[in-house]
């Protein structure tokens, strides 16, 4: 590393990653609705169309099933497609292709075929987009063997996970939380690939493990800061990889803190948080000094008004309270 840094937003970091991938390998191309002339619904791909042209920055019709399937087919055919599904909400239309084709073909063909497709999509609430545009369905994807699923939350990960995902022979789903695109910060000028497996300890602590990912990471770090002010040393773990889960990092943390809270924007029942809790139950039960807590979204279609949207999704005070509760406070 040169030590040099740049100022960059999450959006720009993703864009830089796409650019790098396009430059490095002719097999790479980006496809999706309005990725080209429009510049991407969250402006991630702005400018790429002019630089790489319509074949590699490929606008598609409104056909989530069709173009996602085509991306999977193109991967089978030797390309490394980056399929952008505007948001996870629309990915429901493409699930059959992802679950029944992308995730099965390698195993079902006896290992003959690989599907090196990367599917990126925006996820989450926070922009007052109401019930049909605010889903967090990461847990669904993380349920499916044959897929790898990652959620870059930091600038480093936004910049670095894409190339790793592309070089992976299996289908990788990347979730970008809508509230992260505008986050700005510094990044090493020569930042490049990072692993898509393995959790990261974002803040070390000894009293309670706060386990989270994606859009909730910064809320959780904020909660940890508030807890520190109350003399509680929270360790913050960013799952990063939602499938596979990095059990070793999680259990090492719990073995140290003996307490854990999982923060997850998904609806509580059947959340990824449930899986993490169940794993701690199975692998670290005897380490626990308190039940593992969950801070998740309320079980309701996300409403439009800000006060109700805020009430529906995890917020800092709830995280602080849940952490304190594990300490009997």
């Amino acid at each position, binding site marked *: 590393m040169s030590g040099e840094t740049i100022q960059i937003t999450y959006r720009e970091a993703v864009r830089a990653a796409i650019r790098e991938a396009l430059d490095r390998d002719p097999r790479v191309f980006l496809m999706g*609705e*309005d990725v*080209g*002339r*429009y*510049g991407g*619904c969250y402006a991630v791909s702005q400018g790429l169309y002019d630089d790489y042209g319509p074949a590699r920055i490929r*606008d598609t*019709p*409104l*056909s*989530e*099933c*069709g173009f996602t399937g085509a991306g999977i087919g193109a991967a089978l055919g030797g390309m490394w497609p980056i399929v952008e599904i505007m948001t996870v*909400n*629309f990915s429901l*239309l493409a699930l059959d292709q992802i679950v029944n084709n992308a995730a099965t073909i390698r195993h079902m063909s006896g290992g003959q075929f690989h599907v090196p497709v990367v599917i990126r999509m925006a996820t989450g609430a926070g*922009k*007052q*987009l*109401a*019930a*049909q*545009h605010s889903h967090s369905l990461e847990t669904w994807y993380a349920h499916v063997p044959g897929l790898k699923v990652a959620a870059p939350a930091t600038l480093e990960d936004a910049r670095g996970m894409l190339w790793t995902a592309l070089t992976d022979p299996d289908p990788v789903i990347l979730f970008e939380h809508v509230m992260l695109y505008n986050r700005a910060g510094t990044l090493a000028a020569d930042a490049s690939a990072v692993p898509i497996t393995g959790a990261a300890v974002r803040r070390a602590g000894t009293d309670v493990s706060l386990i989270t990912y994606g859009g909730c990471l910064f809320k959780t770090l904020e909660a940890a800061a508030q807890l520190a002010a109350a003399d509680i040393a929270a360790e913050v773990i960013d799952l990063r990889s939602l499938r596979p889960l990095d059990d070793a990092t999680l259990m090492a943390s719990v073995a140290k803190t003996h307490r854990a809270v999982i923060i997850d924007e998904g609806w509580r029942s059947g959340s990824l948080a449930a899986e993490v809790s169940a794993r701690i139950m199975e692998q670290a039960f005897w380490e626990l000094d308190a039940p593992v807590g969950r801070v998740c979204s*309320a*079980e*309701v*279609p996300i*409403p*439009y*008004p*800000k*006060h*109700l949207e805020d*009430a*529906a999704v995890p917020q800092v005070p709830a995280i602080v309270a849940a952490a304190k509760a594990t300490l009997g406070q």
Partner: protein
Amino acid sequence: MTDAHPPDNTPQAHKLHLSRTHALHLLREMLRIRAFEERCAELYTAEKIRGFLHLYSGEEAIAVGIMQGLAPTDAVVATYREHGHALARGLPMDRLMAEMYGKETGVSRGRGGSMHLFDAERRFYGGSAIVGAGIPLAVGLALADRMQARTQVTACFFGEGAVAEGAFHESLNLAALWQLPVLFVCENNRYAMGTALERSESETDIARKAAGYQMPAVALDGMDVIAVEAAAREAIAEIRNGGGPRFLECRTYRFRAHSMFDPQLYRDKAEVAQWKQQGPIVRFRRWLEAAGMLDADTAGQLDAEIAQALAAAVDFAEGSDWEPVADLTRDVAG
């Protein structure tokens, strides 16, 4: 492309016996929508309205024309660009504005916002933010009417971008196969976000595409409110008489950005300007004036009425309460 230019300038008034009262009603409806939309844009800038906001300016003739043919017991399924449909269907402007704000007095208790307007009384079924997802619902509503031996019609609005979705295909086939009472209205404004029709469809003649489902389909000038009304009345009468589904492709143009986030890199300012000159309101107004149906006084009065109603709606929204947080999980099963 020959039809890349605004249509010509003569409203098809001969198709209807147009009374002055009705003509002024049509104008008023379009003006109400335009005024509402333009105010929404301001309120968005003022951060009173949030989320996604998709405005209907330029397309008013379609919602207004179609609604003329519907009875109160008919059903309407719209999209996320549906303020115009809601207003033309008779949803009260004040409660619509309250919904834009997210207030409890809104038509959806404030929970839906711009993209999710509902009204059970007027059989207005939204307000769907998933492109194409309203189309199967419309088929089902029509099926329910048919199975209950009612002679109601369901009008289903969607953009030309939705035509590429599988839901469109499956729904048109079902409606035609089962001869259901659906009026499909494609609002072909030439763009789906930034994607021009010729980059989304191998067959750009949408009416011809629809006809491929063995469903009578016509294309018409969607900027001519009279033409739309005439076509709607004819189609609805046929549907109501058991003639099965009908398809109207209304060719139009959206004057504003797709949503408030859209820098419009994909089209020329000149193209927009050219279409605006042929807008549904300017054209109709010009024609009414020429026909002696509209004088300056009446026009001024109309504008004043609308401005007043709009001001009252904004006041109503401003003065309304937020739904209490305690009600967050009211009305949800499971």
